[in-house]
């Protein structure tokens, strides 16, 4: 039986609807919006800023989060610099927060640093906070969204929290990276996973399969002691065979080490975060009562693929305090020629907190 869900119904928009929403909603002169966006090499970095600045003008301010990784290539730095300049030209009232993703010993500290960077900037006087996850890694964007949500929930004045993502699954899948070699929990997304009392719990792992992150996923599995695996494959997807192609790459894991029953494969729409959110909650709710009286169930997420699926996983993780396990990228490799953004990419918007959910605000 389905319980009450925080984001069901959910206010979300896709593609032209997002643009229309932004143009009408933010046109209200009372709205003062803070954009938190990534200032990295990702070509998607400035799309949301462009959309918002055209409507909000001077009422838009921004925190540009620049993720610093060790020994970046000159090309990556140049692209990131160009994106930051573009963001600054779009949002004149902006500051750049550089955060180190790794400490000197290689430990992942990006999430904690990101929260500190946002914390030191006041959110007072802001009516809306938009977090653009398009050019932020999950290790950084997840804690930021959680922090802003918690801040907004406890703020005296109403603050609306939105997340935007330029969904480009093909782009995400093409992105090659060098993984750090340590499996981490995303900062503040620990759940109770590591408590001793949970060591006997029935652990279900829901990884989002991605060819680019195959070794990272193998590493997570090796470290996780999972009892069951329900991998997420994209379907429907813009490339009809995208799911099959990914499954083919993971055949050894699915058939071998992970022992995945074909019935356990989860299909989720590649650019619909709310579909992913509902699917994860459905699984969690069906499983919980089975183990309730005994060892209890833990659902662990690894949304390491496309950004839209990551957003859906984030919503589920926030709502049910689910642990999120990942392997941070040590560095990215750009293809010889970066694929330009095309019209296939869809801007997604999910309204997470605020006046769209008056009942939830009342509960708080």
């Amino acid at each position: 039986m389905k319980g009450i869900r925080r984001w069901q119904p959910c206010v979300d928009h896709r593609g032209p609807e997002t643009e229309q929403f932004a143009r009408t909603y933010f046109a209200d002169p009372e709205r003062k919006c803070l954009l938190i966006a990534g200032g990295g090499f990702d070509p998607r970095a400035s799309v949301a800023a462009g959309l918002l600045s055209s409507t909000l003008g001077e009422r838009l301010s921004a925190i540009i989060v620049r993720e610093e990784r060790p020994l970046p290539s000159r090309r990556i730095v140049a692209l990131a610099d160009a994106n930051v300049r573009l963001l600054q030209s779009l949002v004149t009232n902006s500051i750049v927060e550089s955060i180190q993703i790794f400490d000197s010993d290689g430990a992942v500290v990006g999430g904690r640093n990101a929260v500190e960077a946002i914390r030191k900037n006041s959110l007072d006087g802001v009516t809306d906070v938009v977090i653009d996850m398009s050019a932020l890694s999950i290790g950084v964007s997840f804690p930021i969204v959680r922090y802003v949500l918690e801040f907004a929930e406890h703020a005296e004045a109403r603050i609306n929290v939105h997340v935007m993502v330029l969904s480009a699954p093909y782009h995400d899948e093409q992105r090659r990276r060098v993984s750090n070699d340590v499996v981490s929990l995303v900062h503040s997304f620990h759940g109770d996973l590591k408590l001793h009392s949970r060591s006997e719990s029935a652990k279900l792992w829901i990884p989002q399969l991605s060819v680019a992150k195959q070794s990272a996923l193998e590493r997570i599995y090796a470290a996780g002691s999972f009892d069951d695996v329900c991998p997420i494959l994209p379907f429907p997807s813009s490339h009809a065979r995208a799911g099959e192609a990914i499954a083919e790459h993971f055949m050894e894991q699915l058939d071998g080490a992970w022992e995945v029953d074909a019935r356990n494969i989860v299909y989720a729409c590649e650019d619909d975060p709310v579909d992913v959110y509902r699917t994860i909650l459905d699984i969690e709710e069906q499983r919980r009562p089975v183990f309730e009286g005994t060892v209890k169930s833990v659902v662990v997420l690894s949304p390491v693929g496309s950004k839209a699926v990551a957003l859906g996983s984030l919503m589920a993780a926030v709502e049910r305090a689910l642990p999120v396990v990942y392997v941070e990228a040590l560095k990215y490799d750009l293809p010889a020629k970066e694929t330009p953004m095309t019209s296939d990419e869809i801007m997604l918007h999910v309204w997470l907190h605020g006046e769209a959910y008056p009942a939830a605000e009342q509960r708080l």
Partner: protein
Amino acid sequence: MANPFEKRATEYLRDSDTFLSIVTPEPLKTFLETPAQEERLYDRLTIITGTPGSGKTTIASLLQFHFVDSLRRNQNRTGYSSLVQALTACGAIDEDGRPRVAGVRLPLEAEYRDFWQLPYPTATRTRLVLALLQARAILGWFRNITMTGQYRLEDLRLVARPGAQAAVDHMGGLNPVAARDRAVEVERAVYGIGAALVPPNSEETFPEAARAAYHPFDVLEAIELKDADGPLSVQPLVMLDDAHTLHPNQLAELNRNLARRELRIARWVLTRVDALTPTEALLSATSTGTASPQIGRDVTHIAMQKGEDRESQRRAFRRMARDMADRYLRQMPEFSRRGHDKFSDLLETAAEPLSESTLHKLRREVDSTCTALRITATRRARFAEDINQYCAGTKSTDVGEDIRLAMLMILCHRYAKRVPQATLFDVVEDADPAKPIKADAAVAAGARVHLHHKFGRPYYYGIEAVCDAASDNAEQFLHLAGRLVAKAETRIVRNRNAVLEAKLQHTELCAGAEGILRAYDYPFAQEVEALTKAIAKQCLDKTLEPNAPLDGGASAVGILQRDFDAIPASQPRLASVLQFAVGYNAITLAQNYGQGGKNWTLLELGGCVLVSNGLTLRRGGFLERTVPQIAGLLPEDET
């Protein structure tokens, strides 16, 4: 379980029966028996270092109390007795088959490292980590002991060292139920601080359980159990696995704390080689650097890769790998039904000679070489006789005509290099060489590698090739062996002979090695790939010189030891690349290798790199290089 080889890491296997049926006792014997006999394994801090997949976690898992207890209760089951013997040899079980230690393995995951980021003084951060570790160790010991259902928590008796009453009170007393409840409380409180989105502002705002003193390691001396054979007293053993996750200073603090002599519990810290600094990881002195207290007196250090006697280490690994593969194979009913219980029996060891047409081509090539090099018929006949004599006396069965012809080619080229060069006006007929030329196993090794590259003759086959290709790494071995087992399984299913011929073994090993290299994804992986490819290319060029100057060929480059020792200071980028190359088995270091009156460090290519480039798996053949030459092989620094 479908194909257990595909599981590879033993972390995947939590069920006692499955784990014990496939785990091999060899690492225990190889690494723990000697320190156990010298009684320096359980009375002081023990630090164990090794590369990923070298078996650290397997050792730690096997020493956990519930596995030890299951084993001693089922000693008669197939394969268990050897494990019991190994555990006895390393002091975990006494001569009467009763456990002496109660082990618990605590993986030090990234959450412990998180505490180092908290905005508190070092002492507070260390105290929090120690409290979390101690709480989890207490819970882990209780869980391990009660897991098999043989002992009840209420029946345990905690024994404290004399004079530690205050600390006893802090851990909730010696009543096991109260001690467990206190540990649960401390764990939850400290965990909450580390996992918080925004940490508490100061210690004053910590939950009470995280503020109060908690030092069960300082207190505990033994745990007494009510066993069917009478009271049983076990020494608590905590094994902190993957300690490389901690910040170096955090690890140093931890080690310093665990090295205190007043502690009565046994404590091991297991860490990866690449977690050390480049200096520590690369230099020959056995060191754990700042992370370690004084070695020798306070600490027992066990290095799983840096053995002095590398040949015996390789032999030990081969033994372990065989045993492990046989145990895995026994889990597969398809094989046991057909009576295949030995992995090595699935691998044909007979060489696959060249076809008649290729052989004909080789004969003609030998003839033209002799003509070109002006080898007289008498000289050629003498070489052929030497070769026949060697072939008749050798134990190797791989001495068919193709090998003999290839050996003859090598001898002819060696002869041509060792006689004075003739000029147009001064022809020296059949001169004797400056140094005698003889046909032996080394020339035969050169012949085999030449035939492989010229005619595609299978080169890697047999159990030893699989073991050596794995670079003494259990996980890589299982990966490579798993491919071969899968092929054999398919044949069985198709009612065909399961034994794999040399050619198929060679093809599968090459594909497996390339697959492993392709999947490498770790810091500096691209630089490691570029470096190893460049070294392999140079080794291959040398190997394929017609006179086979390094017999079976080169598999390494050598740098003068004193120059190598300066790498961390003079070439920091190269040092970091080498650190990870060593950590991930792409390169193995052999230090203080004496040759030609000089002291060398050999950078030996890892087994998978050798296989994917068709180089010899034998050690010893190396090219002399300088540090700048090696650094010059790295790709351009893009930063």
